[in-house]
């Protein structure tokens, strides 16, 4: 007779497909998962504790490093929080620069997600194509603010640099190029039967579960809930532009895949409109006191990052440093559904589901 035992497998901290140092302890019965316990904290750098000693301009480089794939949105959430507290007005050109940069960042982040997701599933060429196109965006950012990944670009009251000569034209040329590439990606992967068989029907959940677990971003919209913070609670200048919010129906990985690619296309649409409406000259930094000291009180602002709702809760006692700074990180909250989704799946689907949630471990741990 064959005796079966439960196997305890460590999808260990060092793993190419866990998108960072992230560990899942998986109890297996054959190839079927009976229980999954995520363990995190390997990348915990204590940003929230460090922030209690630094003033706000000094915290901005630290926010870059939380969700390093989408650093501009992190910069923005902190600057937006402080500006809400102090009631500052941002000059229009600065706001446009911020919006253009954030939408470019969304495109770049979704490209990273697309490339690495397909790499996890087993396809190698989409990864290189995605990174080739992301390289163009990163080079644009390099010209703009001097760094490829950790930009430290936004400041309380505006942005640091104005666009150099010819930068806006380069962005303008990038948009049709990227749209053509998106069609190419759909040809490459979208109809591929192997890919569809691996993704359709995996990791399903319904709208009530999604709302209960506090999911946000594409993870929430794949179930059909229409909640995009750019439309529901508009911030910055998003209410001036027309764009659609793609919604899914079934709540499985395939819907999330399609939604993210469609979001990429909509971001390009917003970029086109923003470049047309942008004022051709203006200040990029508003009138800010030399020492940034928000009045006592607390504030919670939230924006839509490529991964979901990123929020910043600041409690201030009127000093130049925050008394308590907390980031509501979307990857952290989105990851809670993982143990629930994995029960009853096979090991191969674990990687598919984990990639579909789109986490960045720097954000999970902060």
């Amino acid at each position, binding site marked *: 007779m064959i005796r079966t035992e439960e196997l305890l497998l460590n999808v260990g901290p060092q793993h190419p497909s866990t998108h960072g140092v992230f560990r899942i302890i998986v109890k297996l019965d054959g190839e079927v998962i009976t229980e999954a316990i995520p363990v995190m904290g390997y990348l915990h750098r204590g940003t929230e504790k460090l922030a209690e000693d630094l003033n706000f301009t000094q915290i901005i480089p*630290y926010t870059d490093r939380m969700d390093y794939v989408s650093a501009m949105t992190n910069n923005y959430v902190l600057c937006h929080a402080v500006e809400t507290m102090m009631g500052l007005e941002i000059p229009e050109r600065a706001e446009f620069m911020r919006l253009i940069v954030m939408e470019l960042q969304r495109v770049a982040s979704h490209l990273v997600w697309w490339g690495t997701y397909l790499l996890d599933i087993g396809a190698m060429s989409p990864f290189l*194509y995605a990174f080739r196109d992301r390289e163009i965006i990163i080079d644009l950012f390099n010209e703009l603010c001097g760094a490829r990944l950790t930009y430290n670009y936004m400041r309380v009251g505006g942005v640091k640099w104005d666009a150099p000569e010819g930068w806006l034209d380069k962005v303008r040329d990038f948009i049709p190029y990227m749209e053509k590439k998106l069609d190419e990606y759909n040809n490459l992967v979208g109809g591929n*039967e192997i890919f569809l068989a691996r993704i359709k029907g995996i990791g399903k959940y319904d709208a009530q579960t999604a709302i209960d677990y506090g999911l946000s971003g594409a993870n929430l919209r794949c179930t059909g809930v229409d909640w995009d913070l750019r439309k529901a609670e508009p911030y910055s200048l998003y209410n001036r532009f027309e764009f659609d919010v793609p919604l899914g129906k079934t709540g499985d990985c395939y819907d999330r895949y399609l939604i993210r690619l469609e979001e990429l296309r909509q971001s390009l649409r917003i970029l086109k409109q923003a470049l047309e409406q942008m004022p051709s000259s203006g200040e990029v930094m508003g009138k800010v006191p030399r020492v940034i000291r928000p009045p006592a009180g607390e504030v919670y602002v939230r924006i839509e990052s490529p991964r979901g709702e990123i929020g910043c809760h600041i409690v201030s006692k009127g000093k130049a440093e925050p008394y308590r700074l907390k980031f509501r990180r979307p990857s952290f909250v989105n990851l809670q559904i993982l143990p629930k989704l994995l029960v009853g799946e096979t090991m191969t689907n674990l990687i598919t589901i984990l990639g579909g949630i789109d986490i960045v471990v720097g954000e999970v741990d902060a």
Partner: protein
Amino acid sequence: MKGLLKGLGVTFKAMTAKKITTSYPDVPFVMPDRFRGIQHFEPDKCIVCNQCARICPTECITLTGKANPDPEKKGKVIDTYDINFEICILCDLCTEVCPTEAIVMTNNFELASYSRDDLFKDREWLDSNNHNVRKDNNNIGAPAAAKGGAK
């Protein structure tokens, strides 16, 4: 089957397209002007105001000043100036607040070394690091008159 063939078609087209690979170590990579590399320090311009040390988020700059050896001039002169490059995050906040543009970033980023001691950059090294100095500094600390040179 059709989806697979379409995908293969894209791959074959890419085989004949122009390559974008650069042969990096043989062909040096030119960074745009605003790139934040290691700093360059000019001791003559420094007025020992300590702003850079104060704003550094990781506290990697330490400096000491001494009284000006010229008895007529007032103010301090820089004596030692160290950047602990193990913790410098190249955020360029120090260049932003320097009122005299004594510290600026360069475009040098190839700084790997075999020992940790080499990563503690002192004043002489930073002074001699004057290749590829960044021109566009956008210095909010500098008074408007001094900005004539940059950009």
